[in-house]
């Protein structure tokens, strides 16, 4: 507050200027008329902010009065403005002493302090006013234009010129507004240069205030409005940032200043500060951990360079720490959360080896399942890139992250967003590490030997020059080489250890999820559904198991398969609990379980060909439960492909049962599903020659049908359905399918029996067929006009396709719609024309008739006349 007093001392109250009598300005009748006439345009004049305008106008008038009294030329006003501009930009000190007579009125600042307007202050106020209210300025200009008409006719000829001058001024200010950024930067730079000349940095100036210059500077700074200050801070940030990047070692001190700016700035400045600090840190942080010197080391005498480096490192570290603390505290504030998270993520991603990475990692993992999409995506992407770029940090961060995620899953009882476990999919494991490294050990030994012998030779050669120092250095080298070799070996072991740790954590998580799903299932339906659905983690967990199945230990395999079997809904021993349980998972999830089981089996299928009968039974039943809107057709197609097409052999009975079921299935669903089913069916028929008996006309498979004499469509076990006792009558219906390609496919299949036994294996997989057809369907159904609304509804409830495909399909649909629209409009316009034509023709006929009648009438009249004559 002392400063303010000081300032008031400096800014002496100026003498009051002579008032302008208000009645000097006369409004002519013409003007009134004009305004009344053009109410629309001039209406705004009445709505103007009269106060501000009168202030400006008064000022102008005052200035004019002043000038006139001083016998100065008219341009003086302009030149004075220019001078003031220059002065302000240079921030010279004597501005303050030059008090305008104009500013007689005191002004209230935001603080509530009452000042006399000094020239400088006024100018700044004016500038900001202009910047802030462009619209107001436009109003002013219009007002001035209107006014300039008036005084022209009144005797006061001077006013016009002045107003023109004012207009010019406004125009110049306009220019300033347009240039703001560039100009302001220049200004800031000048300001800073000035400050540097004085040998003080801006914030420090406030504290020192010894010279009068400094005082004035401080005053100027005080006078700057908030925005001005903010802008200044922005440029300061930019400047420090650039200087940091050009010479980090030299300018390390200014990091603190940046942090300071972050601390006291408002919302925008804070965000900017955080971001610029982030950019700086991202660039200057080294790729290794910084260890602060111990006290003992500090006590030692060191060279200048070392001191410098130490200082650099310690400053970097302290500022980094403070920055992180700031980020962590801001992360809890809602409005800053995203920025803080973004900063944390970028830092972690850029420098996974630097100090404090643990806290960074913790912060990132904490938000990995945040309900906010942006935050979650950021965190997930960071973790993914950490996993992907393992070379950067040697895998240590991976282990930590995986362990943290495992802990998170444990703590939240598996109720997290799916993304949080999906990140595991981007993990990569080095296969070679699992192999025994005996061979490598040998090469290392050889190398070591080689080194030693080579050195010995050299020793012999340089025997003469040998002295104590040399032996010392040599032993040191030897030790070093040994250490290197040892450390390398350790590195290898370390890698193995890291990898196995990661794997065990990952699988621990996966198994925890599976177990949790299973338990919540067996505990009946009371389990609370979280914000992410009932079993949010199951899908990514299954995907992960599918991907890493080749890394699972054989010992876990049995348990895993058991869990999967239970999840898929079929347990061999106890039927009743499994039935109640299977209702828990959706069909899609259960299909996924089957798929994963097959993937796991196939990846470990080196020695033994295991037949997953239970999963086939599940699939057989799931096909019936499938609903095209509710469940994902993609998954079904994948299951068909993996389980039925890719498997090498099948039981005949089972194959026949599946063929029959797929045929009935393809009758009741859309074109895409039936196509996928038909492709599978064809594949099965081609592989199992005996199953082609189903295509024959007479039912009853004879000896093949086994003990079951009659087809049982509701049997839950494919082996007991007795499918051989029936025929594939569905195909003949399907050959009349509304979709041409399904129809052709069906008729192709029914002709398979006549073809020779040569096997043409279909190249198309059910998945591919499904995708193709679901694209096709969009086109197809849209084209048939009467089904348009129907197809739209279908599209809405359709399972999500791969993005590109869906996008493409939509485009096609849109195009088609357009085509349809244009065609319809053409059609209707044609119909309209025809109707109009008809109407015209009818009118024409009528008039013709009238004319005829008229003529007849005339004729008769003539005849009558003649008769009368």
């Amino acid at each position: 507050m002392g400063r303010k007093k000081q300032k008031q001392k400096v800014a002496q109250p100026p003498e009051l200027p002579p008032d302008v009598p208000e009645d000097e300005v006369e409004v002519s009748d013409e003007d009134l008329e004009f305004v009344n006439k053009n109410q629309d345009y001039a209406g705004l004049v009445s709505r103007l902010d009269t106060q501000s305008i009168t202030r400006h106008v008064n000022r102008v008038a005052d200035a004019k009065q002043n000038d006139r009294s001083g016998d100065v030329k008219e341009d003086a006003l302009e030149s004075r403005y220019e001078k003031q501009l220059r002065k302000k930009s240079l921030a010279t000190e004597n501005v303050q002493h030059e008090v305008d007579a104009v500013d007689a009125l005191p002004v209230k600042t935001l603080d509530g302090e009452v000042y006399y307007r000094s020239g400088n202050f006024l100018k700044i106020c004016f500038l900001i006013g202009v910047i802030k209210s462009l619209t107001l300025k436009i109003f002013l200009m219009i007002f001035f234009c209107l006014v300039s008409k008036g005084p022209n006719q009144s005797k006061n000829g001077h006013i016009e010129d002045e107003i023109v001058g004012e207009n010019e001024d406004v125009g110049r200010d306009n220019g300033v507004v347009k240039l703001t950024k560039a100009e302001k930067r220049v200004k800031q730079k000048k300001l800073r240069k000035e400050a540097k000349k004085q040998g003080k940095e801006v914030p420090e100036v406030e504290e020192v205030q010894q010279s009068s210059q400094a005082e004035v500077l401080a005053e100027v700074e005080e006078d700057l409005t908030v925005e001005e200050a903010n802008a200044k801070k922005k440029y300061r940030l930019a400047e420090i940032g650039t200087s940091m990047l050009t010479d980090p070692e030299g300018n390390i001190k200014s990091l603190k200043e940046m942090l300071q700016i972050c601390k006291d700035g408002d919302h925008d400045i804070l965000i900017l500060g955080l971001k610029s600090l982030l950019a700086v840190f991202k660039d200057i942080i080294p790729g290794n951990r910084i260890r602060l010197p111990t006290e003992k080391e500090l006590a030692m005498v060191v060279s200048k360079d070392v001191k410098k480096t130490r200082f650099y490192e310690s400053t970097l570290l302290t500022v980094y720490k403070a920055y992180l603390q700031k980020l962590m505290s801001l992360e809890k504030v809602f409005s800053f959360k995203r920025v803080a998270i973004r900063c944390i993520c970028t830092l972690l991603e850029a420098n996974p080896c630097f100090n404090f990475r643990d806290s960074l990692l913790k912060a990132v993992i904490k938000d990995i399942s945040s309900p906010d999409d942006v935050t979650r995506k950021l965190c997930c992407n960071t973790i993914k890139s950490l996993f992907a770029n393992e070379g950067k940090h040697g895998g240590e961060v991976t282990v930590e992250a995986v362990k943290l995620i495992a802990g998170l899953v444990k703590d939240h009882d598996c109720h997290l967003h799916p993304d949080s476990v999906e990140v595991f999919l981007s993990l990569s494991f080095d296969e070679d590490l699992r192999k025994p490294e005996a061979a490598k050990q040998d090469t290392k030994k050889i190398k070591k030997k080689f080194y030693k012998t080579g050195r010995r030779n050299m020793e012999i050669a340089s025997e003469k020059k040998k002295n104590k120092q040399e032996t010392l250095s040599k032993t040191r080298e030897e030790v070093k080489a040994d250490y290197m070799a040892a450390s390398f070996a350790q590195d290898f072991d370390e890698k193995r250890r890291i990898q196995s740790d990661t794997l065990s954590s990952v699988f621990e998580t996966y198994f925890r999820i599976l177990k949790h799903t299973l338990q919540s299932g067996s505990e009946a339906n009371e389990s609370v559904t979280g914000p992410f659905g009932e079993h949010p983690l199951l899908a990514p967990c299954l995907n992960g198991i599918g991907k890493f199945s080749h890394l699972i230990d054989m010992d876990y395999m049995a348990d895993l398969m058991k869990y999967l079997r239970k999840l898929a809904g079929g347990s061999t021993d106890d039927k009743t609990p499994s039935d109640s349980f299977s209702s828990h998972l959706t069909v899609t999830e259960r299909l996924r379980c089957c798929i994963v089981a097959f993937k796991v089996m196939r990846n470990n299928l080196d020695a033994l060909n295991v037949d997953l009968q239970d999963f086939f039974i599940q699939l057989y039943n799931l096909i019936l439960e499938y609903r095209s809107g509710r469940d994902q057709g993609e998954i079904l197609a994948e299951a068909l492909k993996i389980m039925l097409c890719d498997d090498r052999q099948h039981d005949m009975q089972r194959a026949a049962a599946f063929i029959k079921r797929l045929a009935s299935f393809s009758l009741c669903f859309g074109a895409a599903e039936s196509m996928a089913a038909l492709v599978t069916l064809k594949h099965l028929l081609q592989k199992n020659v005996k199953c082609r008996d189903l295509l024959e006309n007479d039912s009853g498979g004879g000896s093949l049908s086994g003990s079951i004499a009659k087809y049982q469509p509701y049997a839950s076990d494919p082996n007991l359905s007795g499918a051989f006792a029936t025929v594939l009558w569905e195909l003949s219906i399907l050959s009349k399918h509304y979709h041409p390609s399904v129809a052709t496919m069906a008729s192709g299949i029914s002709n398979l029996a006549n073809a020779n036994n040569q096997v043409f294996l279909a190249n198309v997989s059910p998945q591919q067929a499904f995708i193709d057809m679901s694209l096709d369907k969009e086109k197809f159904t849209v084209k048939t006009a009467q089904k348009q609304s129907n197809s739209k509804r279908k599209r809405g409830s359709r399972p999500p396709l791969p993005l590109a495909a869906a996008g493409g399909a939509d485009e096609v649909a849109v195009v088609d719609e357009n085509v349809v629209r244009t065609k319809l409009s053409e059609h209707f316009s044609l119909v309209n024309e025809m109707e109009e034509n008809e109407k015209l023709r009818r009118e024409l006929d009528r008039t013709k008739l009238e004319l005829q009648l008229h003529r007849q009438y005339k004729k008769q009249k003539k005849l009558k006349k003649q008769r009368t004559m």
Partner: protein
Amino acid sequence: MRPLDESETTQVFEKLFKFTGNNLKNIVESPSHEGPDQTPGRYCFRLHKNRVYYVSESLVKRATNIKRENLVALGTNIGKFTKSGKFHLTIQALNLLAANTKHKVWLKPTSEMSFLYGNDVVKGGLGRITDNINAYDGVVVFSMTDVPLGFGIAAKSTQDCRKMDPNGLVVIRQADTGEYLRNQEDL
């Protein structure tokens, strides 16, 4: 010819259950279309001269007309009680088991012959195996073309089979179709 008593029934069903699991229900409840009756009858188990037969009810009725000494066999013979009172399944039960079994093993064509000569199944001869077999479950042995060849007892669970060496026993033979040639007089 008489129905099985309680202890005999449990013995027979336990043996069958080893092979068929829950499908045992199908064996007991499946309808029979034999005979002129319109309503399908059921199958039942009958003991005759220490042998157990799986017979349709209509056939049982008709068989009562024949003197016990003169009746050689009826229905399908599925096993016999030994002198010590234990129940053994015989090869004639193969069709019944194959239709209802839970656990299957498929043999490679090269090892079919060895099995049909009465040898056990080793891992090397294994073409395919059902998942989820536990040790000492009943297993039906098939050729790769799904022809049932015989049955036996699993020596190891499916999981353990993975880790075994190729000469390890997978299925201990109980009966194979080769017996029709080898033991003609006993059957």
